[in-house]
């Protein structure tokens, strides 16, 4: 068990290194970091200026320094002249200490401050979505299994199949139209002024995100429960005269929840991707919107920090789910 944990841990670290390096080099090779620091000055050919081919343009921006000095300073501050590998290692050691550098776009602001400000809304949204998803999926999954292959189950399975085919953004737009704009039941935009307004204003976004998850959980739980109900211990319980309800909730549900936990890990990626889009539709000031803006304006420090944190969370959650699964499920525990 311990060696399994250790080797998974080593793999996890290796993957995170690969992920961050990939993101780091992509942003540096494909984008133009200098432009985002000094703006149009990045286009200035400073070599030509030093050779005297172009007149220095100190008049345009700063009385005390020439434009080329400004460019050189920016390069030094953001280490743009260093080789890629060295910059990556420097960035990595800084980030490990929680220092993600300063944003290119909002001058001098530490990236960690920006993300600290943006993460709460996103995390609230995702937790809310999971709560809604599980709140829908568990009862409906149990009900589907209880009525397996009869009419209610059939209807449920058609509905959840349909729900899986609705893109997040389409559902977001439809819900916004029906409940936000037409019926006016829920606010159509994020309002963080109090817990109550936050709860109501995040409901539609969370439902948008959660419905697809719910459909996935429901289908899985139902199938799993149907299988579990065929097992010997259930027959035994039934023979002992226990009620269906008792069997379902006390005996069958627990082992079936394990598979839900596994899927929970896998679904996190879809959840994060969905949150990006849903934040955009419902204009929620979360980390997703921040990331989209940062990507478009090549604000590398913000993008890198965002991607690193998201990927880390994703990998760690899956790691934890693996462990939890092994720890919770007696069958797996017995084997190891």
């Amino acid at each position, binding site marked *: 068990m311990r060696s399994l944990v250790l080797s998974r841990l080593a*793999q996890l670290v*290796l*993957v*995170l290194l*690969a*992920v961050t390096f*990939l*993101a780091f080099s*992509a*942003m540096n090779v*494909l*984008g133009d970091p200098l432009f985002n620091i000094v703006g149009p000055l990045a286009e200035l050919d400073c070599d030509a200026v030093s050779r005297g081919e172009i007149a220095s343009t100190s008049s345009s921006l700063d009385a005390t320094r020439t434009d080329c000095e400004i460019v050189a300073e920016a390069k030094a501050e953001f280490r743009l002249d260093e080789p890629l590998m060295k910059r990556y290692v420097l960035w990595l050691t800084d980030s490990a200490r929680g220092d993600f550098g300063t944003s290119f776009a909002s001058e001098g602001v530490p990236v960690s401050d920006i993300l600290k400000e943006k993460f709460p809304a996103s995390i609230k949204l995702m937790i809310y979505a999971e709560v809604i998803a599980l709140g829908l999926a568990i009862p409906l999954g149990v009900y589907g299994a209880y009525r397996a292959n009869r009419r209610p189950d059939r209807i449920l399975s058609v509905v959840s*199949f*349909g729900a*899986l*085919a*609705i*893109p*997040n*953004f*389409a559902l977001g*737009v*439809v819900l*916004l*139209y029906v409940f936000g*704009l*037409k019926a006016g039941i829920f606010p*159509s935009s994020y309002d963080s002024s109090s817990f109550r307004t936050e709860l109501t204003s995040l409901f539609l976004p969370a439902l948008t995100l959660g419905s697809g998850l719910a459909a996935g959980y429901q289908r899985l739980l139902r199938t799993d429960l149907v299988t579990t109900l065929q097992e010997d211990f259930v027959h035994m319980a039934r023979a002992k005269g226990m009620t269906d309800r008792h069997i379902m909730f006390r005996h069958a549900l627990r082992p079936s929840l394990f598979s839900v936990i596994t899927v929970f890990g896998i679904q*996190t*990626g*879809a959840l*994060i*991707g*969905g949150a*990006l*889009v849903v934040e*955009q*539709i419902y204009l929620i000031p979360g980390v997703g919107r921040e*990331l*989209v803006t940062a*990507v*478009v304006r*090549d604000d590398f420090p913000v*993008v890198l920090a*965002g*991607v690193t944190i*998201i*990927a880390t969370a*994703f*990998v760690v959650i899956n790691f934890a789910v693996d462990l939890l699964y092994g720890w919770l499920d007696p069958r797996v525990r017995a084997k190891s």
Partner: protein
Amino acid sequence: MKTLGRPFWIAVGWLMLLTVLAVFASWLPLEDPHEIGAAEARLGPSSSHLFGTDALGRDVFARTIFGARISLLVGLLAIAFGMLVGGGLGIVAGYFRGVTDQVISFCFFTLLSFPALVLALLITATIDRNQWTVSLTLGILSIASVGRLSRANTIVFAEREFVQAARVLGADSTRIITHELLPNVMIPMGALALLGMGIAIVAEGSLAFLGLSVEGDAVSWGKSIVDGSQARDLENNPNVALFPIGVMFLTVLALNYAGDRVREYFDVRETAF
């Protein structure tokens, strides 16, 4: 005797119909999807404009059909690319095992560690976005999922007698892979391709909502839906967004259903999705 069932053929029929309409859109008696001011703006559905008109007076029906061109093309190309690269790497990894397998599997795992849309964001933001590059981006996203499935299947088949026999008879690796493994791995991959195409079509729409879909005046479903989703348009002229949403939903539903049926039909157990 297993059959695919009538709903399967309905789903396939819908996909065929849409494909035919998209391919022959230019020759069909449709309005020009780019023409502005030919009709009044923001009309509701009517016999002359089946899906109504949008904010610039363009025919929504025509835009939905022309949009199918890009959306279906992106879906098809993306999954084709994923199949080619991911499927190929998966077979190689599954057949040779050892270090090759470890390296390739590690690459797959790394790719999967990016939430898909975040990776798409990283790529699309740094390129010129036409239908080819958007397809390529979405194709890259599918590499790891496709690859893992093809690897798993290859491992199963590589143990089977006919492969072992071919090896004993002295066939080289290339021949075994192309003649023995590929045909067998292809079937489950076909089911995955249908599901993957649906995912790619949805992903194009998601990118459109982030402002990162195909650039310029090219029409896609995602772009049409975004255009109709401005609060006031959604309130007064929901047809502009809801019709393309409906068509996209039916298409993804058809792809998912067909994929599911094919998977059951060929009794494919594990998928990587």
